[in-house]
């Protein structure tokens, strides 16, 4: 297998504000679902406040890797990690941390919108409530901020007490994004967030992701290569649990270094 990881020449200490700072670094990460090895020694940086896309054919491990970031695998028995994901600027290993602590710092949006069976207000406030932020004024302010970030405020500001299920699919997904954003996570993970949505809703979400990246680090899994090309700055191509190639999105799509990458991008398989 050809690996081609573009290493940054500067020190990867994630100093915020540095032009080439990292927010996280995946180091030698392997993962097993019971006996099945889903990830093989993945080495990959996550750049601070940039959008990193994970692409590849079905079953290549991109969603598996994404769920390692917020330790969602810990919910189910039989899963096993090996290696590290270092989180900066603290320089701690996510894999060894308390999973709840990880989830309080890193948010996730799922493929199928999953708002709680509650009002819009309660949904967005969920992450705040769980952190003990319950004072009405603070919560209201945060909710408005989060809904604006998710480009949903204008559509729902008059019906915050209404049920979340009254919203359309695209709106529900933006609600879930607002919900994940409200507690101001350090990183937000998006697992194929638009695959269940129509093109208009998809476009709206792609726009807001680009805006989000100004303040939050984004890692997005997508099976839609054009989407990756549109909104990410860095892309990692995965195949059968291995990172085949990683680099700046523009370079990877126009001049892929590995043949497998080229085959996937040109549609020879996938």
């Amino acid at each position, binding site marked *: 297998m050809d690996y081609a990881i573009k290493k940054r020449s500067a020190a990867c200490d994630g100093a*915020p504000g540095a032009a080439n700072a990292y927010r996280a670094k995946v180091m030698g990460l392997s993962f097993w679902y019971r006996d099945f090895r889903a990830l093989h020694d993945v080495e990959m940086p996550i750049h601070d406040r940039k959008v990193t896309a994970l692409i590849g054919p079905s079953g290549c491990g991109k969603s598996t890797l994404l769920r390692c970031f917020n330790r969602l695998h810990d919910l189910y028995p039989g899963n096993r990690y090996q290696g590290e994901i270092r989180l900066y600027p603290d320089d701690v290993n996510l894999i060894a941390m308390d999973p*709840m*602590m990880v989830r*309080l*710092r890193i948010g996730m949006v799922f493929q199928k919108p999953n708002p709680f069976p509650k009002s819009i207000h309660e949904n967005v406030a969920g992450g705040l409530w769980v*952190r*003990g932020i319950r004072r009405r004024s603070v919560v209201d302010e945060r909710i408005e901020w989060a809904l604006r970030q998710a480009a949903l405020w204008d559509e729902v500001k008059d019906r915050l007490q209404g049920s979340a299920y009254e919203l359309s699919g695209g709106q529900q997904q933006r609600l879930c994004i607002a919900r994940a954003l409200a507690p*101001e996570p*350090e990183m937000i993970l998006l697992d194929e967030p638009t695959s269940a949505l129509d093109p208009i809703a998809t476009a709206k979400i792609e726009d807001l992701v680009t805006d989000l990246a100004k*303040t939050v680090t984004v890692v997005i899994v997508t099976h839609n290569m054009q989407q990756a090309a549109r909104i990410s700055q860095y892309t990692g191509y995965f195949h059968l649990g291995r990172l085949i190639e990683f680099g700046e999105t523009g370079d990877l799509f126009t001049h892929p270094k590995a043949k497998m990458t080229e085959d996937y991008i040109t549609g020879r398989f996938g």
Partner: protein
Amino acid sequence: MSAVSSTAAMADVNLEGLIRRNRRVDLVFAGAGLLVLFVTVAMLSALVIDLAIDGAPRLSWDFLTSFPSRKAARAGILSAWVGTSLVMLVTAALAVPLGVAAGVYLEEYAPRHWITDVIEINVTNLAGVPSIIYGLLALGLFVHAFAMGETILVAGMVLALLILPVVIVATREAIRSIPLVIREGSYALGADQWQTVRMYMLPAARPGILTGVIVGMSRAIGETAPVITIGALTFIAFLPPAPVSGGFPFINFDWLLAEFTVMPIQMFNWISRPQAEFHVNAAAAGLILLVMTLAMNGLAITIRYRARRTAR
């Protein structure tokens, strides 16, 4: 808004305490769940052990073959278990065909029609009606209006009506869980609806239906209230006429019209007496009842478990 990293740093200080507090609540709740489980298990064990201790010494061949008597030491449950067996025979003979037929109709044939809705609402409603109301129905209608008297037949009828919803629901769920491919395969061969149901779907649904029937019957065995209401007597020192007789036509149905008692009623009668000796008899009868119903429930669970494994 504040820079992301300072928020993170600030949040960390609170987060650890928060996590610890939340975890504690989590643990307390898990403890509560286990406590409930433990108490429930303890109660059931206490019940079984208490019954066994009180009643087991009284179990004997004599006990099983004697009639009730005013002397506690001589009293037995012969008329009671014979009565139970006969009543269960009638119950099964009525509940199984009617319940399965109704279940099949509702699941396979019923069109979207307000009549279907009425039927379904009724089945659901009847499942929640107290058993003693069924007894009143049988008393007013069967015993008096139809002048059928206080007989085994009527007891079987009322118990059949009581467990009908159980059989219907079990049949429906069993049919519902049959993979679509079996039904489609049969139609593709040119079979009509009844042929499909009779030759392919009912056999496939058999374990589920059987489970439901067994559970229903185990309920019927333990039911006391409706049978008392229709007038089953509590002191029966005779047996119903035997179904098989020496002369022509060899089988008679007189027993259906006989007076009778059943096991739970006998137990109730004994425990209603103040004398402790009768309580011992009640415990023994209860033990037999308990073993019977537990065995039947266990059988139903095993059937369902086996069916689920082979279905994979």
